[in-house]
């Protein structure tokens, strides 16, 4: 998993819970990276899962909700780091993730293990996103989508009709965009 995700996670924990918790998370989960993250590298996703597990225990918030929140936070952060990728509207943006954004990431980090998205576009105010990743981080994706919706100040409804956690071959997000 790309270092930038960990770097943002670090920032989120510091911002929302304070440096003490972040320090303790590293102390307690003993990650291989020793909590030293740079976007220049990739790290094992288990480090993130450990942090989130600990955080869930400490806060009583479910792992899914935490991951979703982190996705939301991540998108807002990334939108500041890479404003050029924020194309004209919410739906367009979501459709560029696979073909444009991930393609660009691949140019810089050819070994990046990225999820794949395929799309169905049944109506102007609808979009189906099919998510596949061995990491099964559909809640992160959901949070990212929510973050994007906030960035574009666009209302959306998302229902996940398939989920890899339920042994489906992929996760399926059906979005209705607007009121």
């Amino acid at each position, binding site marked *: 998993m790309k270092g930038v995700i960990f*770097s943002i996670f670090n920032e989120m924990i510091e911002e929302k819970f304070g*440096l*003490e918790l*972040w*320090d303790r998370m*590293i102390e307690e989960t003993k990650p291989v990276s*020793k*909590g*030293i*993250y*740079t*976007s*220049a*590298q990739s790290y094992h996703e288990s480090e993130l899962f450990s942090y989130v597990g600990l955080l869930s225990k400490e806060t009583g918030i479910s792992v899914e909700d935490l991951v979703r929140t982190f996705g939301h936070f991540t998108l807002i952060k990334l939108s500041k780091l890479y404003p050029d990728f924020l194309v004209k509207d919410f739906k367009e943006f979501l459709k560029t993730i696979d073909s444009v954004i991930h393609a660009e990431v691949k140019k810089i980090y050819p070994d990046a293990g990225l999820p794949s998205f395929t799309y169905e576009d049944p109506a102007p105010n609808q979009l189906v996103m099919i998510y596949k990743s061995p990491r099964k981080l559909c809640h992160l994706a959901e949070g990212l989508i929510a973050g994007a919706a906030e960035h574009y100040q666009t209302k959306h409804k998302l229902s996940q009709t398939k989920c890899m956690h339920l042994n489906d071959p992929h996760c399926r997000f059906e979005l209705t965009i607007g009121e």
Partner: protein
Amino acid sequence: MEAEVLSKNEELLKRALYRERQARFKAEDILEKKTKELYVVVEHLKKQITDRIEAEKVIKRNQAQMIQSEKMAGLGQLAAGVAHEINNPVGFVTSNLQTLKKYSLSIKKMISEYDSLVSSVQSKDIEKSVSFLTELAKTKEKEDIAYILDDLDNLVKESIDGTNRVKEIVKGLKSFARLDEAEMKEADINEGIESTLKIVWNEIKYKCEVIKKLSPLPMIVCFPGQLNQVFMNLIVNAAQAIQEKGTLTIESFVEKEDIVIRFTDTGSGIKPENLEKLFNPFFTTKAVGKGTGLGLSVSYGIIKKHKGDIFVESQVGVGTTFTIKLPMKGAAL
């Protein structure tokens, strides 16, 4: 308590600072390694490009040389072939003419003696006339006039045959010279095969018996000289494929919309792994200097230019068949 808390915060911050600094070092280190690595890649690619540019220069230089040597080889082959073909008939025609020159002398001598006889008869001097007869018979015997008169027609006929053979060769050359023509013409493919055979006959006659099965064909619009070049390549290749003695069968016929020309030899055949490379430029199985490997690729180009097709089938030890299909509707080339 307050102090302790602050002190704890300080510890946290120090650890965070340490991690952050290590992360920066890591990022900087990766940047250097990656930059170095890409530097090497870029240098490598640049070298590849300059190497190619060099190689291209060599190709161009070699090109001039190759053209030269191909041209020379072709010219030499043609010149030697023609010289050989003409040499023989011209040789015996000349020799016949030398003989005729002698015969002419003998005949003149004979006739002058006959005329002496005539004079003596005219003067009605029978004794003298009779005595001439002995003389005459002697001369006739000596000059072998009977043989001369018998041989005369043979010599002339043989010589005419000889000059006709030379004329045929000249005709073949003229037809072959149409190679050079840049314009399309109506032409009879069979005629092209025949005139090409004449040109290369000298080169193939010791190795192959040529069996011609040429059906009448409609005229087609084509570059006749270029097609002759294709035929020549295939015929000479076939002869070269034959080890000692063999057969080359040349067929032509109409099939659906196409004229089909087929060259089947009983030569050594082509290995399957070479079969697919056969039409590649510069592919050759001949010894260095024996062929540039252009013949078949050029043939392929010519046939494609005529919107036709050329195929090869071969079995090692059995022989090879080249099949050419040319659309009769000449195609707007």
